């Protein structure tokens, strides 16, 4: 059994999947943070007769793991909100987690609140750029205010030669100053790091020496050319890390208390999932993942592998296309994913192509979007899912049905609402597989050298997918692409390797 | 051998299929286009503006600079009704350029050699089509010589060399002995008889496929003729070997039965893959109706070949043995449909090594007799008196039975005496017989008295058995 958790802003939904099929799901109103909502949703799920029936448990206690460690119970009590409805005041008794004893994985899709972005020490290694293109240009004041930035000499050409020696003194001075300002999250971006990350790695060592306990994100991990996008991704990752670590801790704690020994995972925003440990280091890959999870879940619920999907939340309707089980990627940059990019700064992730509309005002926009997607992906079925997919009053669940716009009426006929449509996000999360990718620029002057570089990138992708939570035996390369770069010396290729695997 | 059409213009298909451009890849229409009367080398696309119909256009230089140039040449060739376009492999992508060739119906020949050499080959073939065709026939003769006297290889050569035609060797009943079933489809391009070693018609070689040019059927017929001699040789050889093997197998079995310790026989048996140690079961196939010895001999190779376990001629049928095997039953049951003559089958119980083989074969044979009708399998360990009686050859015994019972038959107008006698002999007691017949015991006793009065002594064992059999046979005959 796999559990998917869709921690939305309005409701938290949990879906249990067995052999890829939805067994049971619950929805509870989101209150008191992701971890608290998760705990309440798991309680509701455990008490759901459907789960008991499906597991043939009757009234007997289950066979799952024991209660969580005593120490964590104390921690939870000290900062939890015991008064919230649905939260048990006492630690659960033996067997409380029984129904989940056989869980293989728990996959969370969650958007960390924008308010929890930490200030970041942003170090850029390369030549100074025009002010409009400098570090943190375009970022909202709430992040920029307490952050520190510096540009120091260094970096590499795309063919891998140093532009200038790394200015180590300047790096130390910057780290010291940021440390004095109380910063612990750092993002380091060097010009040319998709080809050579040497200066990023050297700078990280200097910062770590200067600021003990610093969390350092290096941009080459998001190794696409395009310095601003890479830097912004690294900064966002660094800014998310403290909140991500808290969420991973709290959610892990909730699972332990529920007796769930299965690995905790987080759905990626571009499809797939990563383990909690990887998430703590690279939360940006899982940030704003709800949209992609809902798209993937919709096709799974409908039993098809390709569809046009409308994901209706009480706030807005999101339209996307799923092909062969995976959301069709958008033009990139992430500006079309709300909540992902602070202030709309460009990022460098391959995110699902989405069109959005807010009803009732955006009905024209919605229909236009539908028409565009049908042109783009002719002949696919149309699926309507999400917390607001049913007309007010049709659905039970926890959403308040008050002034909810009638999405189905706005969309018109030809839309199928699959069974369990409200749980699409949770279902998509639960069904995801571990994935990780490596993107870099390689400079190879001959075929043999290129093959060597490709093999190297494959190895790194496999290593990375294992560190993202895949069982080593299950890791495999899902795709390899290489494109020559125009107007540059022969032998420069952009290489991208995607690896995938299964948990446990 | 210059039949009609031998001199007609060569076609694109003939150039490629076994012709002078045998190494070329033909993209485009599957039926291969029309006649080639001329060839033109095009080093610039402009050349294509001035070609005449039925010309093969060989692209070189700027006209073969890439897929785009080849596509433009195809288009112009189509406009000019050219016979085909020949392009170097480096300039062509099979997917896209090939689909345009299909779309326009212009054959595109992709060659790896120097296009100028190709042009010379085409020019020669176009100028002297008979010579080109003779060349193909000559090459086939060479390949056939290399194939030897294996029917499979001979027909394989025909199918490979006569590309575009399908050739099959088929017997009088329509069974494909070698080659492709497609050789039977549609009207034949050419067909020749293959005589057996004795001169009788053994099979026919038949080629089918599109008639690509007026000359093509004649070429195909010429090549098929070349294959007749090796095929006749094959038939003779196959027949000899089969007869030899069959006689050897059955002699070996006799040796083993005579002396289970005959070391030479045991070694020969092992060489044939026959089991000689450990537990064995024997099986017997018995033709129904029985076959004359010469027919048994004639069918032996076919029977042996139709079963994946040993089968040799033995007494009035075929026999074999193997280690006990759960699949044997099913294999034997599936066998009759594949045999050349209808047979019943018998299967023995388990015997220990070759020493027990004689007994096992006798059991299996008895079981095959019990099985009676064709297509039936009986296991010896399942045979009881009822089966044995049921297996009586009614036809053979009916006349003697009538003779034995003649006095009784004469006296017994309504058949009650025979029925009573049979019931008493079947059940063994007048009381049980009365019960079976639904009459009083005294009635049975009275009828038996009448039987005895006619001269039959039921207490005398030999007479009792003869009577019992006679009753049984007559009852069977009457369908009671």
């Amino acid at each position, binding site marked *: 059994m796999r559990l998917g958790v869709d921690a939305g802003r309005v409701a938290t939904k949990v879906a249990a999947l067995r052999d890829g099929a939805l067994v049971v799901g619950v929805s509870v109103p989101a209150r008191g943070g992701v971890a608290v909502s998760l705990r309440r949703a798991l309680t509701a799920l455990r008490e759901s007769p459907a789960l008991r029936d499906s597991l043939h448990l009757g009234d007997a206690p289950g066979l799952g793991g024991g209660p969580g460690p005593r120490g964590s119970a104390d921690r939870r009590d000290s900062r939890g909100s015991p008064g919230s409805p649905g939260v048990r005041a006492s630690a659960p008794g033996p067997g409380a987690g029984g129904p989940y004893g056989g869980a293989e994985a728990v996959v969370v899709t969650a958007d960390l609140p924008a308010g929890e972005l930490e200030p970041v020490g942003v170090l850029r290694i390369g030549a100074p750029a025009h002010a409009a293109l400098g570090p943190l240009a375009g970022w909202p004041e709430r992040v920029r205010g307490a952050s520190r930035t510096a540009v120091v000499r260094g970096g590499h050409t795309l063919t891998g030669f140093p532009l200038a020696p790394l200015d180590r003194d300047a790096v130390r001075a910057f780290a010291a100053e940021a440390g004095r300002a109380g910063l612990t999250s750092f993002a380091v971006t060097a010009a040319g790091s998709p080809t050579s990350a040497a200066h990023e790695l050297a700078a990280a060592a200097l910062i770590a020496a200067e600021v003990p306990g610093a969390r350092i994100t290096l941009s080459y991990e998001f190794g696409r050319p395009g310095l601003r996008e890479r830097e912004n991704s690294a900064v966002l990752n660094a800014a998310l890390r403290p909140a991500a670590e808290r969420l991973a801790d709290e959610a892990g704690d909730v699972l332990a208390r529920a007796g769930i020994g299965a690995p905790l995972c987080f759905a990626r925003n571009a499809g797939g999932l990563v383990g909690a440990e990887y998430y703590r280091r690279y939360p940006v890959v899982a940030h704003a993942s709800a949209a992609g999870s809902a798209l993937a879940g919709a096709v799974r619920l409908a039993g098809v592998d390709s569809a046009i999907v409308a994901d209706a939340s009480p706030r807005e309707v999101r339209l996307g296309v799923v092909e062969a089980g995976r959301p069709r990627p958008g033009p990139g940059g992430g500006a079309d994913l709300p909540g992902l990019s602070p202030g709309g700064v460009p990022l460098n992730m391959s995110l699902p192509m989405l069109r959005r509309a807010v009803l009732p005002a955006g009905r024209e926009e919605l229909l236009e979007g539908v028409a565009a997607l049908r042109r783009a*992906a002719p002949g696919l079925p149309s699926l309507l899912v999400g917390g607001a997919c049913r007309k007010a009053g049709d659905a039970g669940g926890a959403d308040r049905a008050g002034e909810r716009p009638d999405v189905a009426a706005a969309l018109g006929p030809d839309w199928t609402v699959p069974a369990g449509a409200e749980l699409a996000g949770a279902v998509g999360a639960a069904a995801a597989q571990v994935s990780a990718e490596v993107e870099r620029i390689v400079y190879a002057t001959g075929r043999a050298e290129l093959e060597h570089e490709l093999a190297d990138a494959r190895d790194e992708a496999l290593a990375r997918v294992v560190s993202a939570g895949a069982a080593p035996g299950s890791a495999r390369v899902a795709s390899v692409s290489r494109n020559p770069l125009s107007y*540059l010396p022969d032998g420069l290729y952009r290489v991208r390797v995607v690896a995938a695997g299964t948990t446990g | 051998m210059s039949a009609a059409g031998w001199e007609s213009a060569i076609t694109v298909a003939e150039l490629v299929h076994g012709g002078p451009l045998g190494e070329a890849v033909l993209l485009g229409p599957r039926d291969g286009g029309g006649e080639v009367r001329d060839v033109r080398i095009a080093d610039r696309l402009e050349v294509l503006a001035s070609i005449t119909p039925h010309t093969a256009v060989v692209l070189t230089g700027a006209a073969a600079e890439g897929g785009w140039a080849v596509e433009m040449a195809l288009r112009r060739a189509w406009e000019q009704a050219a016979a085909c376009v020949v392009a170097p492999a480096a300039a062509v992508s099979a997917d896209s350029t090939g689909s345009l060739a299909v779309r326009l119906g212009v054959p595109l020949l992709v060659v790896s050699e120097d296009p100028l050499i190709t042009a010379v080959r085409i020019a020669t073939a176009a100028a002297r089509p008979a010579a080109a065709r003779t060349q193909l026939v000559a090459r086939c003769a060479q390949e056939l010589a290399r194939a030897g006297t294996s029917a499979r290889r001979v027909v394989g050569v025909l199918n490979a060399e006569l590309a575009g035609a399908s050739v099959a060797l088929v017997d009088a009943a329509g069974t494909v002995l070698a080659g492709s079933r497609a050789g039977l489809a549609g009207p034949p391009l050419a067909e020749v008889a293959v005589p057996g070693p004795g001169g009788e018609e053994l099979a026919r070689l038949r080629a089918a496929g599109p008639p690509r040019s007026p000359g093509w059927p004649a070429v195909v017929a010429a090549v098929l003729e070349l294959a007749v001699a090796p095929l006749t040789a094959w038939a003779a050889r196959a027949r000899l070997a089969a007869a030899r093997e069959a006689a050897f197998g059955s002699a070996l079995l006799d040796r083993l039965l005579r002396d289970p310790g005959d070391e030479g026989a045991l070694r020969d048996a092992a060489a044939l893959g026959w089991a000689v140690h450990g537990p064995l079961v024997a099986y017997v196939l018995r033709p129904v109706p029985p076959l004359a010895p010469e027919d048994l001999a004639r069918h032996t190779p076919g029977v042996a070949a139709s079963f994946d376990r040993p089968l040799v001629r033995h007494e009035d049928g075929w026999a074999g043995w193997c280690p006990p095997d759960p699949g044997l039953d099913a294999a034997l049951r599936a066998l009759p449909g594949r045999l050349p003559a209808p047979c019943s089958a018998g299967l023995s119980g388990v015997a220990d090594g070759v020493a027990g083989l004689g007994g096992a074969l006798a059991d299996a044979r008895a079981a095959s007799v019990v099985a009676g009708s064709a297509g039936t399998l009986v296991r010896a360990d399942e045979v009881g008196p009822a089966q044995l009686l049921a297996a009586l050859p009614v036809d053979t015994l009916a006349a003697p039975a009538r003779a034995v019972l003649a006095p009784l038959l004469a006296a017994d107008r309504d058949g009650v005496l025979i029925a009573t006698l049979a019931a008493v002999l079947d059940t063994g007691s007048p009381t049980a017989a009365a019960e079976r017949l639904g009459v009083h015991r005294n009635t049975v006793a009275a009828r038996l008295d009448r039987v005895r009065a006619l001269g039959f002594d039921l207490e005398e064992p030999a007479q009792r058995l003869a009577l019992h059999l006679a009753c049984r046979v007559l009852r069977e005959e009457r369908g009671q």
Partner: protein
Amino acid sequence: MTGGGVEDDPRDRAGDAARANAVGAGELGFLAAGSRVFAPGAADSSFRAAREWARGLLTANGPVPLVDAGELPPDAMVAAVSLVGSTTAFGEYLPGGDEPVRAVRALEGRLGERIAAVVPLNTAAENALLPLVAAASLGVPLVDGDGTGRVFPLLEQTTFALGGVTPAPLALAGPLGDVVVVDSAAQRVEELVRPLVLAAGGWVVAACYPARAGKLAESLVPGSVSRLVAAGRPGAPRAVAAPYGVRVLCSGRVTAVEQGPEPGPGRRLPSRPASILVREHGGLARLIRLEAYNEILMALADGAVAATAPDQICLISTADGTVVDVDRAAAGMDVEVVVLRAAPAWHTGAGRALGGPQVFGLGVPG
């Protein structure tokens, strides 16, 4: 809209340069959108960087005046400004901000006189924005026009060249602080500049084709900048960006992309040839073959020439209406193949000789 309220034929607008008289931060968004109606690269790092750079300058320095070449004194010196090199490198080695000024000052040093205005060499994506950046940095007006009316891979493929203006002397300034002045015969420029660009970090701002305004007015494609501003306004039909006419060759699906051979040493073109095969949806279901060297140079429909350079051939994604970069075309994409008629200067004997497919090795018979 800056013009009248009447919806007019875009062809009429070709010579009408006075639609906008300045480009400020407000018009920038329209110009940026208009510059991509028929050019790829919407999501490229380099395009975003160029736009942010321009936005920063226009916000700080105010709008850049947009002038007709005829409005300038006939003897005023004008230089064309363009990005030369790799957009990937531009997105990675970001401009320090002084590249246009360094290039223009170096050119002025060579010429011995000041530049009165800058003119775009072409107006595709970044190249519509960099001349604006240069004008804003230098404090001079931007000429409403450009030197190609489309985009070509080689520096010498311009209407300026057709009008008798030579690219040299030209000055290059790169992101690592380098400045190089090149003065040579027109046909040697490309060969000299390419290795310099690589050495300078993969991209440079080039100030080139210095010419008197009077001479320039005869050879430029007029009105390009204001036209793109109009084309980029929400709801504007895309034909606005194609003043000499646009037609849809077919609507279909990419069935294959074939990479040509690796270029050997001494290559003249900055990329490998590629062929894109498109199967037309419906209609005649024709097979369309597009031959590309960075730009699509020729379209064959069932083997017959349907369009060639110097007309511009674009692939437009049916999914989102954006232009598909040749490098990123992939089997399975649904596209429209669109042909934009080139400016009249290209449809002359000299124009075809300079911008026709034979320049790229595609010998199309007459």
